[in-house]
């Protein structure tokens, strides 16, 4: 049975987000002959038409409504809800991004729909879509499906393939009714890499006594910047005054749970592990192959951090540019 799929695309820093392409790709596979459309909010959205067309959307909805020029969840919600009505979408997909996390539940509530958020895979089983999502911080998974109404899911970024499938995409302008906004976005501060708060950072590059000096943190800072992460430290490094105590991670410092924790020159005393062992992926770089940090690490490199870290920075720079 063919289904109309609506993909809510998003830009970040002037570029379409990777997850939007992933969603478009998934949309193709679940539409089952139905129409795949995309919507992009915000001024100047039409400029992305060509890029959207590479991923097979039949239509791109854009709106120059003033209320949509800067993001607010309330305005986006109203616009998206009316568009879902208008295009009679059966399936709605968007990224589980900061915007997706706010807008999707609101739209679902507004329209009385279910929502399966943060999916890491989508498959079809006897004609039904089955969504897989991590629970308990990735310690388990669940498969969910819809039993009523429209199907609405948000996708965890960078978990799906994106397949190029050029199409003729028609640009359609729409004018939603948006009212009663009681919220003002006053200011958005783009934080530089160094400014990312440790406790909220998704990626942390952390240094221990092995960095040997305050200057020794420089390569770590550079790596963190490339990854958009924050710099942390073990108590040993703080004690030795290589860095400020506000960066300390561990039993008596901050407890962090980033997606990626890169421990450089940290031996891994229990006091430190208590602050970071719940990180999703731990990478250890240490000269001493016996260091306890390797016992909790997912990936380890035995080597001199002053050699390895700059190489990593270079490699990531390369990899992130090409994606």
């Amino acid at each position, binding site marked *: 049975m063919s289904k109309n799929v609506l993909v809510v695309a998003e830009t970040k820093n002037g570029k379409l987000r990777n997850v939007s392409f992933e969603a478009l790709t998934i949309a193709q596979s679940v539409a089952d002959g139905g129409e795949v459309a995309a919507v992009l909010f915000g001024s100047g959205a039409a400029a992305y038409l060509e890029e959207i067309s590479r991923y097979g959307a039949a239509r791109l909805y854009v709106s120059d409504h003033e209320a949509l020029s800067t993001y607010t969840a*309330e305005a986006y919600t109203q616009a998206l809800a009316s568009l879902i009505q208008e295009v009679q979408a059966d399936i709605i997909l968007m990224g589980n991004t900061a915007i997706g996390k706010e807008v999707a539940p609101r739209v679902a509530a507004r329209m009385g729909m279910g929502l399966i958020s943060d999916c890491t895979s989508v498959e079809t089983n006897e004609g039904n879509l089955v969504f897989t999502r991590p629970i*308990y911080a990735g*310690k388990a998974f*669940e498969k969910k499906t819809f039993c009523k109404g429209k199907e609405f899911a948000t996708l965890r970024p960078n978990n799906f393939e994106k397949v190029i499938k050029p199409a003729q995409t028609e640009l359609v302008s729409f004018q939603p009714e948006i009212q009663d906004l009681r919220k003002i976005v006053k200011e958005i*501060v783009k934080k530089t890499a160094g400014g990312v708060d440790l406790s909220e950072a998704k990626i942390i590059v952390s240094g221990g006594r092995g960095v040997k000096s305050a200057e020794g943190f420089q390569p770590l800072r550079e790596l963190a910047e490339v990854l958009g992460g924050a710099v942390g430290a073990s108590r040993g490094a703080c004690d030795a005054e290589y860095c400020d105590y506000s960066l300390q991670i561990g039993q008596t410092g901050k407890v962090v749970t980033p997606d990626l924790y890169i421990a450089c020159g940290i031996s891994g005393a229990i006091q430190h592990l208590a602050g970071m062992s719940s990180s999703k*992926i731990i990478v250890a770089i240490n000269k001493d192959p016996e260091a306890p940090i390797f016992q909790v690490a997912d990936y380890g490199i035995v080597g001199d951090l002053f050699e390895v870290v700059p190489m990593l920075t270079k*490699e990531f720079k390369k*990899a992130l540019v090409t994606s």
Partner: protein
Amino acid sequence: MKILVLLKQTFDTEEKISLQNGKINEQGVEFIINPYDEYAVEEAMKLKEELGAEVTILTVGPSRTESALRTALAMGADKALMIEYNGSEADEYVISNLIAAAIRNQGFDLILGGYMAVDSGAGQIAIRVAEILGIPQIAAITKLSIVGRNATAERDVEGDLETIEVELPFLATAQQGLNEPRYPSLPGIMKAKKKPIEKVLADELEISNEERSVRTEILDQYLPPKKQAGQILTGEMDHQVSELVQLLRTKAKVI
């Protein structure tokens, strides 16, 4: 000011997950207040101390969740409302309808909740409630200040910092970094024993059958393949480095 905090009881984050009959096993598990909700409770307490407020805690769940409510009351909340619901089949759609039905027309000026629950990780309920009640929301706040009817909040947007102004009433969800939750004092624990917990059965709440019927269902819960022992990379250093970048991007998918 009337503040409502939405709270969920979850597994202690250190608990091991095991399965029983295809479902997550709750036997012998240490339960805590969902850490993000604990920030919300703490924030409510700080506002109460600063501005004066009546703080109500609301939860939906089986009878075991009462202990989480007592802890929140011990932290200083004034009363609690427990929507007793024993089944596991309710989805976010139904639960948010139940909550909205229970609190509608009660005149809460501020609703606080956690950014997400560490068990389901869905992050839907609080925001759905805001929409059903027709009030604005600010998700993932790291700072909140209220003067009169005006609030200013800072929120974490994928590492960027957004400053939002809004008028009461509104809903906000708490992100890590908002505050350091307090340890309940002993008199607080004693007083909490005497504070009222209003219990209402989910079936007794006035919502339509349509609002009661789930939109999604869980087909299966399972454990991931056992986490592999750490992998120490070998070979030439430049090879190791590029392999690591590959692994992080394609296998671990964290970048």
